């Protein structure tokens, strides 16, 4: 048995790949559920009903999907240009802290119509800055950005932790390490009454469309794709490699920073160090499941959010640890990587 490269990938296979990967992940995780002594099919049924079975559940799942769409887009944009941004988690935290700082300390009284856009821009800018530094190190000194962006996550989270224990500490929080709140004028409006779902969903889906359009139709999209697929070919064709990567980094870091700003302005209203249950890392899974397609990111983010929200409810009902959601999402990344390999190679006897 050996592997031979495929010369052609049929479109149906490209579409089926993530579905096959998810099915494989569910089958593998099913083994773990069975091991925990629960009926597998009923457990998966519960995950779906717990995630979408009621109005409250559905809004909760969609709320969870918002930051995942944004971090998924951040990863998809960067990966397509072969810029390995593993730092969305840190960019998300800096974005959140930037929104809180601007809102609570600088412009608490500005009306929502002005304040909300300013806060979103501030969050995006903070994420950009955190990604431009590793990019500069790569362009100037060929430092591997996988390492720098990954490690900057810890720096960023610890930096945020320091801020919310010192200058940004909320004096009204009874000593809990939590930041000053976003002013009421800076909070995103609710999309559905008596739920946590906020207009961040509209922003995220709109941005997915914009990113898709930019990649598919603009000069910049064409150049950044060339830069990612073949740096040598791009340089020969006169694509300004450095400038293209800087723009890609600004979009990717900006989207991740925006994820943080949107999350803090839409849900909690203040920053703690458990603001994100790993949205930055899950964004990588979302982007890979989506095959780096911006529209696919929305679907993949919904799947991931469903697993997390549904598994919470299922574990309450059946006594299975909620970790099953983390395991399934992680398994779906692994099976997607395997599936992607088989989109490029076929097995011969």
């Amino acid at each position, binding site marked *: 048995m050996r592997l031979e490269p495929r*010369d052609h990938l049929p479109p149906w296979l490209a579409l089926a790949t993530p579905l096959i990967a998810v099915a494989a992940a569910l089958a593998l995780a099913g083994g773990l559920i069975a091991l925990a002594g629960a009926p597998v099919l009923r457990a998966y049924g519960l995950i779906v009903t717990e995630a979408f079975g009621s109005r409250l559940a559905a809004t909760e799942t969609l709320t969870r999907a918002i930051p995942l769409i944004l971090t998924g887009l951040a990863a998809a944009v960067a990966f397509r240009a072969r810029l390995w941004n593993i730092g969305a988690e840190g960019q998300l935290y800096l974005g959140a802290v930037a929104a809180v700082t601007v809102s609570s300390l600088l412009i608490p009284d500005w009306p929502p119509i002005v304040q909300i856009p300013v806060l979103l821009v501030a969050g995006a800018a903070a994420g950009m800055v955190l990604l431009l530094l590793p990019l500069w190190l790569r362009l100037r000194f060929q430092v591997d950005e996988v390492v720098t962006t990954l490690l900057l996550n810890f720096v960023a989270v610890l930096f945020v932790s320091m801020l919310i224990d010192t200058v940004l500490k909320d004096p009204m929080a009874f000593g809990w390490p939590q930041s000053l709140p976003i002013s009421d004028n800076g909070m995103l409006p609710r999309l559905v009454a008596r739920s946590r779902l906020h207009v961040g969903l509209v922003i995220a889906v709109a941005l997915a469309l914009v990113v898709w359009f930019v990649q598919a139709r603009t000069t910049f999209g064409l150049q950044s794709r060339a830069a990612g697929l073949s740096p040598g070919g791009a340089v020969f*064709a*006169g694509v300004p490699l450095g400038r293209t990567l800087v723009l890609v980094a600004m979009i990717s870091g900006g989207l991740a920073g925006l994820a943080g700003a949107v999350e803090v302005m839409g849900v909690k209203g203040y920053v703690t160090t458990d603001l994100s249950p790993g949205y930055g890392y899950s964004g990588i899974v979302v982007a890979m499941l989506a095959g780096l397609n911006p529209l696919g990111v929305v679907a993949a983010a919904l799947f991931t959010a469903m697993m997390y929200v549904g598994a919470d409810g299922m574990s309450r009902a059946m006594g299975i640890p909620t970790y099953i959601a983390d395991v399934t999402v992680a398994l779906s990344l692994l099976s997607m990587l395997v599936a992607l390999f088989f989109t490029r190679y076929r097995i011969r006897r």
Partner: protein
Amino acid sequence: MTPILEIEHVSKSFGTTRANDDISLTLAQGEIIALLGENGAGKTTLMSILSGHYTPDSGIIRVAGAVLPPGRPRMAIRAGIGMVYQHFSLAPNLTVLENVMTGTESLWSPRSNTAAGRAKLLALSRKFGLAVDPDARLGDLSVGEQQRVEILKALYNDVRILVLDEPTAVLTNIEAEHLFATLKGMARQGLSLIFISHKLPEVMATADRILVLRGGRLVAERRAAETSRAELAELMVGRAVTRPVRDAATPGAVVLELTDVTLREAGVNRLKSVGLHLREGEVLGIIGVSGNGQKPLAALLGGTARRSGGEVRLFGQPIGNLTVTDAIAAGIGRIPEDRNHEGVVGEMAIWENVVLERIGDYSRHGFVDRQAGMADAERIMAEFDVRGGGAARPIRLLSGGNVQKLILGRNLSRRPRILIAAQPARGLDEGAVAAVHERILAARRAGTAVLLISEDLDEVMALSDRIQAIVGGRLSPPVAAEGADARRLGLMMAGDWMEAEDAS
């Protein structure tokens, strides 16, 4: 007497392509056979089956009468089959001895028996007349010496059958002649050799028998003494093919002039006080073995490298360093040496590869004008006979010849004033070579100044009006094509143009 190697009815398909179709051949001890064929004729597939890297769909291979288990590289090596690939599998940071011994000792043995290895290497080196210094660092050796190491590495594994894949592709013609003498000596000592090539003269000079492959089938077998170049060429291509030859023309004004140009890169002088001038309607051939400064020269003129000294005049005006956009805007067309890694982005569509280097012309307010791009791509594909489907397909699905025709087309359809053509026919089959040459000559007739950078003597002599050799980053003075023959150019390529001038 049993032949040392028998290949019987071997077939191998990839998808719907029959790469090898019922091929049978024999090789006697002490014999040299040549496998002759165009790219894609199935030579390399057959050799990969022989070396155990591919499993044949059907058919068997016997070595000295014993069946060789299919798809087992280790068994092939043990049976005495040695391969010398076109791209060396040597580590530049190790010494010659270390390279030769790599992989011959168990990973678990505590120490390496270098004394025995050295003795064996020196014995082989003497026996076959392949002089090397066992302690030299491989990276310091010339390409010809590295190839000697590669051959010794195969011999070190006690080969009985040595396969050489396009062994002369990286050599000067003088080095190549040494190689042929060595190979004949090895055959006299009882080794059997298979020699893969698409170059007719060297096949005729070296092999005892010549087997011609075409489209995966063995179409003919000739004794070298009983055939001719014309017959072999026709057998190889399947029809009579003649490469076009330039006709006389009067060159016009000088459009490009380099004086004393140097280019330093990573602390090494890649170009050393280079001088040339190029006229409208002429082809200036730059002949030389790869790696002697062709890359930086093409990059400098194409806008992807900066010079560190000297003067460049474009259309009479002194200019600074060009960017790619400047170069294209000035009417410089560029055919890169590495068409797969520079010329095109394989995963992108054909039309995207047409518009990419002229993105400014196809962009309106930042949006790509896909319709115009598709239309131009289809026009170029029709005009330059690019086959392989619609303009929206990924370009990696095209064959090398069609990719090259597309690259030519996207340049020539704009009627460039200067064409920098680096290795334009490298790796193409005979039909595509003729097409590419015809296009270059047509551009010359239309008044384009062509700088032809090539390592193929026949190509340079057929197309060029004047010829300069490039050696170690230096350019020889030009010689007129009429006064140049293979011997003189060979001397120039060896860096000996002072002598070549004296001899003239």
